[in-house]
Every structure is written in structure tokens, then in C-alpha cells.
């Protein structure tokens, strides 16, 4: 049992959803942040609205680790339903703050834990007048208790409460009163015997802010010039479009006239939302939809159409645990392969893979440029962890580049050309030119269809024409390899490397540091997009063993690499998978790598 340092532990708050614990959890998180200490909250919630178990983990570390930690140091147990299983999850030497009334028996009784029983219900009953509010305020009491136990000053807590209830200031006092009850009770009845402390830090969190990936992506849509959005609600993607709506209400509406420079439609389903996006993209608007796994399945036919008819579209897939309806409030990276080749027949799409808040914003913005440039659907794959959790991030940079609308011919352009063909490969990059409906020129019009067509967009069933069309699409896809965001490489000439994409990144950061402490050195490549960049093959060529880390069952990126990499590189790849629905943590990488690296000989795939 290692003695934990100050500012280096994880708090888990176990409550019941719909009980308002969310605000107290955020108050706590914010208070710690205000101490200058890096925090990473992970909300693990159920797929219903009220009454089921929910857990809120607050990871605290001087190294500013952003991934989930498997080791729970301090449990706040406020859910009788999970009491018996929550306590065993606490790490030896840990602390349990709990409702005093809970039964102390069975696995709950451990001699390696410190227990702080608090009569939450009774305190609330005595000091908070009855009514709906009481249920919520009970949670504020625990904040007070922790403040006292961990050493957060009432001032800090109050500041953070004010931040939380900006919109309704009168709530501040009632909540602070509840916090006060917790502090008072702890002062009076608890003698701290555990080592966990919080100490103010400097230089760790300066200028940082909290943001979730869905909001960052929504900001990317605003700054990327998205003018048409069509969506259908689905967890965990709903808040992306809802953030976009909120931002547009603020920044896209003319205050005088009320005229809106955007159309956001809640469609009747995903078949319609993608249809609206493709119709809008065809008509020249930058259009997007946001969904999750089930929606991607329903969009298969239209996405295949847009690939073949060559229409820009941006599709956000905030991944949840699949297959099927799966676990709507859990996270996975299991739509990668499906999205990459979505649609029947031979198809291949551009897929962007953000890992951070900055990238959620940047890639969202870039997706519209790529969609216009390549006249094709572009997927942006987030996951529930990135999309819905609050992450500490640098403020997002104002874009300096203008929109790249790609190869669009205006009436003036057409005047200069005596002829043009919608699907001609003029530049040899596989990317043809298009005109937008409404272009005032007799030659502007062409016919868009999902059936066979020649370079002039005329219907054709001729074998050569068909094959030529398919081959050009391959050319276009290859052009994209060097234009999509390149992989991020960290190399120090080590023979072993880790390869990953998306949110696995944060667990890898911690894992590599800990592996280093254990004497296992690794290089690192993070893929930011499909199709694969040539740099990646080169990177793998420079390493003997490459561990492909991903959050799905079948090793989907590993599979794509085996398909697409030069054959001689394949034997270097080893698949590391995590797929239980909670975000990957460092151990999921450290354990297999330690085993493999300590006996590289016996490494099998």
C-alpha cells in the first residue's frame, strides 16, 4: 500500500441520478480547480432519468492526468443501493464518507479503510425545511464535509457555489447553508485520521477552463461556417447540437430583425437528418448532423450515396457502447471500422479522430473544409468520454484561416470554360469540379444521382465508365491521405511504440510515464484521421513492436492497419483492447505492455 501524496488521489461520489448530485459534484470539482490543482471529472451515469445509481469520479493529480483512474481513494457513499458494492471498490488505505444509517456488514466491513459516518438524512431533516429542495441539498452537505476533511476553505467553496448558480443567485445562500452544515458536523464529530489532503498549487492550471467535447465541436461548427444542421436526439450526441443551438441563438441572430444565419432542424429520424444535410450540402451550404451508433447505422444508405454522388457532409458520431442500443451512457470507440466504410458496395470515407477539447474544436472546423474540398462525407468521431465529460483545456484559438470551399465553379468561371464536366478529373487528384444550384449560367446545371454516371454526369451503364468512376474515387481518397490531420509522433528511438487514436490518448500519457518509471520506454504515434497518412507506415517501419491501443472489442484500428499497411510491417503490430464501457485507464495499457515488453520473445498477437 503506497502512501498517497497530497493532491494526488481520486474521489468517487456514489449517488442516485435525478437527486441533484450533479451540481454538488461540479461545485466540488470547481473548488479543487480554484486551488490551482488539476482535476479530471468522469461522470458515469445510467440510461434513465431518475432513481438509478450514478457515480462521479474526480481525479486529482499534480501531473494533470486526464484519464480515469481505477484506484478509488475516497468514496462518498450516498446511494444505499450500491453501498455494498461501492465500498469494496475503494483501494486499501482509502476513505469512506457515508450516510451513518447504512448497515455495516458483509463486504462493507474492511479494516484497511477509514470510515467517516455522517447522518446526512438526519442533519437535513433537522436543519433544512421539508420539500423537494431537501433531497438536493443533502448532496451539498457532503461538499462541506469533504471541504473540511481535505482542507478547502469556505471562501473557495462559496466562490465555486456562486459560479455554479450564476443564473439563480438566491440559490447560493441555501446551498452554502447546506455546505455549512457539512463543515460544522465534520469539525464537531470527525477526527481526521487519513492522509488525503489538498494543497493550493500554482502554475498548473493558469488560464485553463472547463469544457466538454460536444460544446467544443459545436464551437467548431459555428466558426467552420456551418449554416444547416439537422439532427435527431440521441445520447451522448444530443448536447453537441443543443450547444450549437445555444451558440447560434446568441451569435447567429440579428438582434434587431431576429433573422438567423443558420437553420437547425430537429428531424424525424436519422434517415431524414442525413438527407437534409446532403440536400443542403448539394445546394452549397456547410451542413452537419450529429448522432451516435444507431444513427450511423440508419445513415448508411445516404452516406453511401453522398460518397458516390460526391456531396459534402459533416457527420459527428459521439460514440457510445455498442453494438445495437448497447449502453447509451457508456463509452467506446467501436464505430471506427463501420464509419470508415459505411454503405454497401465499395466505399471509403474520411474520418477525423479528435482526442482533446482543442481537437474537437479544430477538427470540427476543419471537417467542413475537408468536406468541401473532397466533396464527400466527413466523419468526426468523438466518444461519450470526450463529448460529455468536463475537461480542463486551454482557451480555444480564434481561426486565422478562411473557409476552403473547394473546387466550386461560379458563373464567371463557366464563362471562361467552353466546357466542363461535373465528374472530370481535371487536376489528376481525383477531385472534380462542381457548381451550386442557383448559379446563373446555362452550363451550370448537371444531374446528381446515385446510379452510374460518366464524366459529364450523364447516366451510363457502360462497364468502362463504371470502373473509371470507381477508380477515380480511389484516387480522391489517396489524395486525402496527405491532407487530413497527420498523425502525431513522439519518437526517441525506442524499439517499442504505442499507437492509438482519440481518448485513449489520455490513458497512454499516464501509462507511458509509469512504464518509464518501471524502465519500459515507448515511442508514441497518435492517429488523427483516416485514410492513413504515409508517415504512419514510416513510423511503424522505425519500430520493432507497435502496440495498437483502442477501446473496442475487435481491434478495429488494428484490423485496418493489417489491411492497409505494407505486409512486412504487419508482424510488428500487437492489439491492446479495452471495451467494458468505462473510459480506458492507464492499467489497461501498462499491464499488457509490461508483460509483453518484459518477455518480447513470447509476444503473440
Amino acid at each position, binding site marked *: 500500500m503506497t502512501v498517497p501524496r497530497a493532491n494526488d488521489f481520486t474521489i468517487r461520489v456514489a449517488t442516485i441520478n435525478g437527486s441533484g448530485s450533479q451540481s454538488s459534484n461540479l461545485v466540488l470539482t470547481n473548488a479543487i480547480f480554484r486551488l490551482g490543482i488539476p482535476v479530471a471529472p468522469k461522470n458515469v451515469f445510467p440510461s434513465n432519468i431518475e432513481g438509478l445509481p450514478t457515480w462521479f469520479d474526480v481525479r486529482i493529480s499534480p501531473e494533470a492526468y486526464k484519464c480515469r483512474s481505477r484506484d478509488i481513494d475516497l468514496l462518498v457513499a450516498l446511494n444505499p443501493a450500491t453501498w455494498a458494492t461501492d465500498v469494496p471498490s475503494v483501494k486499501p488505505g482509502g476513505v469512506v464518507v457515508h450516510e451513518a444509517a447504512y448497515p455495516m456488514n458483509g463486504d462493507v466491513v474492511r479494516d484497511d479503510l477509514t470510515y467517516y459516518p455522517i447522518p446526512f438524512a438526519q442533519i437535513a431533516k433537522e436543519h433544512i425545511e421539508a420539500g423537494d429542495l431537501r433531497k438536493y441539498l443533502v448532496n451539498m452537505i457532503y461538499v462541506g464535509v469533504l471541504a473540511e476533511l481535505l482542507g478547502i476553505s469556505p471562501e473557495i467553496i462559496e466562490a465555486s457555489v456562486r459560479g455554479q448558480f450564476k443564473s439563480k443567485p438566491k440559490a447560493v445562500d441555501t446551498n452554502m447553508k447546506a455546505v455549512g452544515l457539512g463543515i460544522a458536523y465534520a469539525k464537531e464529530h470527525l477526527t481526521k485520521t487519513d492522509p488525503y489532503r489538498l494543497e493550493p498549487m500554482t502554475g498548473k492550471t493558469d488560464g485553463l477552463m472547463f469544457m466538454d467535447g460536444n460544446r467544443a465541436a459545436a464551437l467548431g461548427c459555428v466558426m467552420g461556417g456551418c449554416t*444547416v444542421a439537422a439532427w435527431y436526439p440521441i445520447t451522448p450526441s444530443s448536447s453537441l447540437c443543443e450547444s450549437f443551438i445555444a451558440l447560434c441563438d446568441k451569435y447567429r441572430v440579428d438582434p434587431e430583425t431576429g433573422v438567423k444565419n443558420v*437553420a437547425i432542424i430537429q428531424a424525424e429520424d436519422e434517415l431524414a437528418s442525413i*438527407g437534409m444535410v446532403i440536400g443542403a*450540402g448539394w*445546394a452549397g451550404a456547410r451542413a452537419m448532423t450529429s448522432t451516435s451508433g444507431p444513427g450511423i447505422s440508419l445513415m448508411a444508405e445516404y452516406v453511401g450515396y453522398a460518397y458516390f454522388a460526391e456531396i459534402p457532409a459533416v457527420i459527428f458520431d459521439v460514440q457510445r457502447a455498442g453494438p445495437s442500443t448497447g449502453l447509451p451512457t457508456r463509452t467506446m470507440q467501436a464505430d471506427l471500422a463501420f464509419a470508415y466504410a459505411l454503405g454497401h458496395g465499395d466505399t471509403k470515407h474520411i474520418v477525423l479522430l479528435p482526442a482533446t477539447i482543442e481537437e474537437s474544436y479544430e477538427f470540427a472546423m476543419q471537417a467542413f473544409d475537408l468536406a468541401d474540398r473532397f466533396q464527400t462525407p466527413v466523419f468526426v468521431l468523438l466518444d461519450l468520454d470526450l463529448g460529455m465529460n468536463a475537461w480542463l483545456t486551454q482557451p480555444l484559438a480564434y481561426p486565422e484561416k478562411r473557409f476552403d470551399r473547394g473546387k466550386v465553379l461560379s458563373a464567371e468561371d463557366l464563362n471562361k470554360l467552353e466546357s466542363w464536366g461535373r465528374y472530370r478529373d481535371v487536376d489528376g487528384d481525383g477531385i472534380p469540379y462542381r457548381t451550386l444550384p442557383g448559379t446563373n449560367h446555362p452550363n451550370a446545371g448537371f444531374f446528381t444521382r*446515385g446510379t452510374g454516371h460518366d464524366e459529364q454526369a450523364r447516366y451510363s451503364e457502360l462497364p468502362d465508365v463504371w470502373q473509371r468512376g470507381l477508380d477515380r474515387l480511389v484516387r480522391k481518397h489517396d489524395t486525402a491521405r496527405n491532407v487530413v490531420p497527420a498523425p502525431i509522433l513522439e519518437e526517441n528511438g525506442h524499439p517499442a511504440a504505442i499507437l492509438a487514436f482519440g481518448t485513449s490518448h489520455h490513458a497512454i500519457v499516464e501509462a507511458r510515464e509509469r512504464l518509464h518509471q518501471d524502465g519500459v520506454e515507448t515511442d508514441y504515434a497518435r492517429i488523427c484521421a483516416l485514410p492513413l497518412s504515409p508517415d504512419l507506415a514510416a513510423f511503424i517501419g522505425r519500430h520493432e513492436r507497435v502496440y495498437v491501443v483502442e477501446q473496442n472489442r475487435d481491434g478495429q484500428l488494428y484490423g485496418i492497419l493489417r489491411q492497409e499497411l505494407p505486409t512486412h510491417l504487419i508482424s510488428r503490430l500487437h492489439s491492446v483492447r479495452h471495451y467494458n464501457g468505462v473510459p480506458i485507464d492507464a492499467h489497461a495499457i501498462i499491464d499488457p505492455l509490461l508483460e509483453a515488453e518484459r518477455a518480447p520473445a513470447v509476444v503473440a498477437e
Partner: protein
Amino acid sequence: MASDAPVNVNLIGLTRDVYKGLPTTLCAGCGHNSITNHLIKALFDFGVQPHLLAKMSGIGCSSKTPAYFVDQAHGFNSLHGRMPSAATGAKLANRELVVLGISGDGDTASIGLGQYCHMIRRNVDVTYLVENNGCYGLTKGQFSATADVGSTMKNGRPNEYEVIDVCGLAIELGATFVARSFSGDGKQLVPLLQAAFAHKGTAILDIVSPCVTFNDHVGSTKSYAYVKEHDVLLHAPDFIKASKEVTVDYEPGTAQEIDFEDGSKVILRKLEREYDATDRIAALETIHKTREAGELVTGLLFIQTATPDLSTREKLPAGPLARLDEAALRISRDDWATLMAT
């Protein structure tokens, strides 16, 4: 009457040839081909700008129609049953476009029913044609959901299932323009088409259009013979374009006059029956009663010009969203700074 006046060029100075398209690849005698010709006349008479016309369709013989008129216009042959969503997106992206959607009964009433209903619910400003032959022509004649109960297939098999009446359905759902016509009745169809163009909102035209190859036999209720025999005209429609100086002459009470936002009018001249095209319940009743009586009512079944269309409801700018630039779309540097400071 306006739509019949002989002219070489139309209101915007274009010849009729401009409104023609590629030669048809449909069967000789297919009702869809006649509809194409009536469309060409209506588009020409109305004076639609070719470059502003968006010809959209689903999949089917009917959905091939957009290739056969206004060659200069942009065409969008989408997916089976999924044209309404694409049309909605296109109209949102550029509300200057005249969106003309062409579908079939299978495309609309079977696979496309959900999108059809929701397009109507949103009152998207689209002229939506159902070229209705009661069967799936392109896949060789299976029944569609608009086949009448008892109507038979070529092999004699009768349809057992309730008909879906795309007009009754639209009216029930709050549609603002619902008409039924017959591919063989240009006199009625051409003015109705122009009225649909003038209407701001979803304009549904259910056009019975016989499939000569698979559904024109005795026993079919969508055959030329059957329709000619059972067609009941609600009124004689007549369209007057805003810009035209035309004096409308009719005895008070002998016609119903409907005025459109752009100043155009449609005059519904009375025939046998009294009919108020602005009475929703009466329209539903008429559709049900006549169907029970084995009649096929054609004409402007229902119209309501007041309801705002989708783009208006969404408070979109007058110009196309598609053409807005960084200045119009990005958050200002100042606002950004404040946003990132919180």
C-alpha cells in the same frame, strides 16, 4: 386564359425549348411522359428561371422524370423514399431555389411515408408531385400502398390492404395545398401546377398516371379506362400569374378565387357540385365519400395560403445561407475573447 395564350417566349423571355430535357427512357404511353409535357408547359407559362429550378426526385420510373425537362436546371435523383429530406435541406440552404420534387406512389406512400408526412408537417416550400400508378413500375408491377382495395395485379391477384390516400393523409396532417389530377388532363393539371409553384409552402399534387406496362389492365383502378370513367372534376381551375394584366371574368358565385402572396390567383370555376377548397373537414369528407362511391375526385382539394413556410418560421435571411461568408458566420474576435474568458 393565361396558361393557354399562344406565345413564342414566356414572361422571362425564354423559349419553350429551354424547358425541354433529355428524351424519355420510359415506356411509350406511360402516364409519366404526359405529366412531363404538362410540367414543361406549366414551367414555361409560369416563367420559372431554369438556373433557380431544383429538380429533385426519389427512385422509380416516376423519379426519372426530372431528366426529361429543363435540361439546364440542377437535378437531384436521390434515394428511394428519401427525397423530402433532401428537398428540405436544399431549400434551407438556398431559399431562392424553386424546389420541384417528383415522386411515385411507392416512393411516397411505402418507403417514403414518414418523410412525406414530416415534410408536410414543416410546410417546406416545395412543389411535390406523386406520379401515382398504384404500383411499382420500375420493379415490374408489384402493388404499392396506393392501390385500391380489390384492384388487381396483371396476374389477377387482388390487393387486400387499405389504400393510403396521399391527399387525405396530407389534409389530415395539416397540409396547406393538396390537389389531385390525372396525367391525361392537361387542362386541369397545368393550372394546378402553376398554382403549386405560386403557393408558399408544401404543395401536394397526387397525379394518377397509368402504368401501361403493368397496371393498365381491366381490374386495375389506375388504368386509363378506369380513371376516364370515374374521374369527377371538383371545379375547373384557372391560373393567373401575378405579373400578367389579365382581367378575370366570372359571375360572382360561379367561382372561388384564391390569392397567393405573389399576387397570382387561381380561379376555381364551379361545375356540378358546390365545393369550398378552403374547408379542411369538407375536403376529408369529400375524399372518403367519393372513394366509397368508387369515384375519383380531381381538382384543388384543399388550400390554405396564410400558413408560414419552413424558411419563414426559421427566420432565415432572404438570400441563400449557402453563400454566407466568414464575416457573417463567425463569432467576432471580441465576443470570442469574452467567451473564452468565462
